[in-house]
């Protein structure tokens, strides 16, 4: 048993999926925390996105965070490639299918559709990068007017880029659809990751599963409210 055998066997590939998946879940928490700073505007309109812009500035200018960004990209890359490989390999294991499908007799539709949900999330991710990550890192599209932060630094005005981006209904709807896909993906993925890592204790599994269901609802909901809040004028 060498290392490559351990991580390329049928179980090994799943271990890679679960470890990268849990890492991406931890990223979601950070991403959500930073972005939730936009809600300051809801309680204090005079903030005008300052709190969020300061948080975004910190994330963009801190060396450790920038190094973690590389790890994050590696995590995304491995999770996506491995997921697609597994999906196609698993499908190839039954060349001739059934006339009558089992359907929902015994499993949930979203558990069986992780490949599809993941592909929707990948497409959403590409659009999301185009909207925010690429302008902030490279093109400065929509960020031509820097903003003076309350801590004295001059930074990209990500808050108003969000506001401008979410002024169109189709973008708001696509983002909400992305969040719904994320919710279903997490609904299966959260508990499945722990199963794959060997959590068989029923007491602990129930705890993890309950937490996972809550996480899968709350996190995508907070994300989905962001484009909606801008569009409805609740903030910004």
């Amino acid at each position, binding site marked *: *048993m060498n290392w490559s*055998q*351990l991580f390329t*066997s*049928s*179980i*090994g*590939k*799943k*271990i890679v999926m679960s470890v990268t998946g849990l890492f991406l879940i931890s990223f979601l928490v950070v991403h959500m925390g930073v972005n939730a700073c936009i809600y300051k505007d809801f309680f204090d309109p005079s903030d005008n996105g300052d709190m969020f812009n300061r948080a975004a500035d910190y994330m963009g200018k801190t060396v450790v965070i920038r190094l973690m960004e590389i790890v994050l990209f590696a995590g995304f890359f491995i999770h996506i490639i491995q997921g697609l490989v*597994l999906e196609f*390999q*698993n*499908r*190839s*294991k*039954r*060349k*001739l*299918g*059934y*006339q*009558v*499908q*089992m*359907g929902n*007799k*015994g*499993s*949930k539709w979203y*558990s*069986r559709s*992780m490949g599809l949900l993941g592909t929707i999330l990948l497409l959403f991710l590409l659009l999301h990068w185009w909207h925010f990550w690429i302008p902030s890192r490279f093109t400065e599209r929509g960020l031509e007017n820097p903003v003076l932060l309350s801590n004295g630094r001059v930074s990209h005005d990500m808050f108003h880029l969000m506001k401008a981006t979410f002024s169109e209904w189709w973008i708001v709807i696509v983002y909400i659809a992305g969040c719904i896909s994320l919710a279903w993906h997490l609904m*299966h993925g959260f*508990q*499945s990751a*722990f*199963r*794959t*890592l*060997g*959590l*068989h204790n*029923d007491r602990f*599994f129930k705890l993890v599963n309950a937490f996972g269901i809550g996480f899968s609802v709350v996190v995508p909901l907070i994300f989905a409210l962001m484009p909606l809040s801008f569009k409805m004028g609740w903030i910004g």
Partner: protein
Amino acid sequence: MTHKNINLKLKVWKQKNSKSAGNFETFVVKDISTEMSFLEMFDVLNERLIGEGKEPIAFDHDCREGICGTCSMYINGRPHGPWHATTTCQLHMRAFNDGDTIVVEPWRANAFQVIKDLMVDRSAFDRIIQAGGFISVNTGNAVDANSMPVEKDKADASFAAAACIGCGACVAACKNSSAMLFVSAKVTHLALLPQGSPERRTRALNMVAQMDKEGFGSCTNTGACEAVCPKEISIENIARLNKEYLMAGLTLEK
């Protein structure tokens, strides 16, 4: 439940051998007693086909008591038919209504080649067992059972896993054709007992390696296997196998 006779339409997979392509053929069966088992209904049909000079439908069966794991039919989109925790031989015709159409297919998986009609080759399971599903015992008298204390909960969990009859319904139900429920039951059965502990790590690694070699897919924890298992083997065992495999992979010295 009152006894009655029913008429049914069967759409059954017919395939000459593993090389040829198969197709569905329709058979009408009449006056089937609701007290009959599903296999007895097939016996009645085959008797008639033989009488008519036609070839009977080939299907696997042995004990007809629900304990051997030989019968294997995918009935109306579910391995072993509509009843929970039931093998095909224990499925009775009272599960169906007069006039029903029943679609009967063989287990479908690349690792389970169709031999003929509804019979599939499940020798892949035997080879997985040969790879590690055993304990090595030195010759001599059997050790007195009571001299080896086993925690009650572990004994119960081991026994529950040992109930697996290796029918292959888990593979048939899984969208990935994964054999993980079967392998995990066999690994759990021995891993929880002191007799199984000397070979615990190599067993998990070798059985998974053989499972992969046979062409079964990866487990994605959908739970379809657990839902159709005639012996109600829990999906918890799969998590336990994952742990056994990971621990063995990380701790073995070579």
